[in-house]
């Protein structure tokens, strides 16, 4: 399976999913006109990875602003990871935010509320 690379734009984050490393990086703001179009390839990629790769998956996030439909898509991805975790697969997430924008950290906490896999929220150094 290929890597998934989506360039950053003013309204959408940079997305880089590395099949061999088992790492997904997302960075930036997300308020695309069509969030389904943006996120579906990533959701498909995660599904394929979790089904076929047989390796751990690490999600690295530096997301700042998310609109409502992007929130929904992120929750879909966390749900995919949660069910993989319940099946015994190793998955984890790390959300990094700027100290100046404390609210991003608080919102990350809300996201991770229902996740039982390792989910850390850290201030950017």
């Amino acid at each position, binding site marked *: 399976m290929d890597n998934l690379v989506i360039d950053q734009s003013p309204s959408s984050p940079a997305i880089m999913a590395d099949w061999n490393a088992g790492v997904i990086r997302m960075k930036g703001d997300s308020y695309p006109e069509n969030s389904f179009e943006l996120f579906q390839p990533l959701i498909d990629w995660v599904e394929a990875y979790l089904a076929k790769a047989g390796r751990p998956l690490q999600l690295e996030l530096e997301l700042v602003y*998310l*609109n409502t439909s992007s*929130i929904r898509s992120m929750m879909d991805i966390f749900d995919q990871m949660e069910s993989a975790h319940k099946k015994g697969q190793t998955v984890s997430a790390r959300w990094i935010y700027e100290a100046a924008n404390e*609210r*991003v950290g608080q*919102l990350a906490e*809300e996201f991770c509320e229902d996740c039982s896999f390792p989910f850390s929220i850290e201030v950017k150094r």
Partner: protein
Amino acid sequence: MDTAYATRIESLLNDPAASAADMRAALSDLYDRVRTQQQMLDRLTQISDKYQQAERERGISYAEQLQRKVRRVEKIVRISDGYQIMLQDLNARLTAISTHDELTGLPNRRYMQERLTQAAALSERTDASFSIALADIDFFKLINDRAGHAIGDKVLMRVAQGMRDSMREYDVCARWGGEEFLILFANCDKSNAAQLAERVRLAIASIDTSDLHDGLSVSASLGVTEFVAGESIDAALKRTDDALYQAKAAGRNRVACNP
């Protein structure tokens, strides 16, 4: 019940001389039939119960699924609200940046121009007079030249603080230019404004700057005028500027009023 069997039973019942053996055979046959019927009935009841149970479970799992979906939507709404508050905070920060001077924290020229426009409109509607004062730090270029720009900036910050402290709560002071400050005295005629400007002048003159640079002292000259209903703001500013020029010409560190 099939016809042959029914006929057989009827003929046995109608025959008073029917033998016990015949009767017994018929009864045994009947008992078999009843038992088979009962078994079928039990089976039907069981199947029916199973269907009912399955339907009930399906209903419960629908309710559970629905509840899960509702919880999820609630969570999305909650997080989304959080992001909106974040945007509002950011907006407030940007507004503050666009209306305030970074160095002194005072409102900036753009903000003051807006306030002057509002005050002029209010004065035309309600006859509420207001006055303006232009303050200029005396020999500020010399301070910059001798002590350096970093010290100059500190002087500006202290002067701004001194002005803030010596003004009434509802008056506004803005950084108008390099070392120029504009004060809007709301609901205030010229003679009152002159007194208030004098208070500001004294406050500035009493600022201790000796710790910043050897022998450094600070003072300001102020020009004051009252807005005349119907005139342009630029016209009032021009009179204030003329008054400031008079204060400077008369030896600085003083307040001059322009009619």
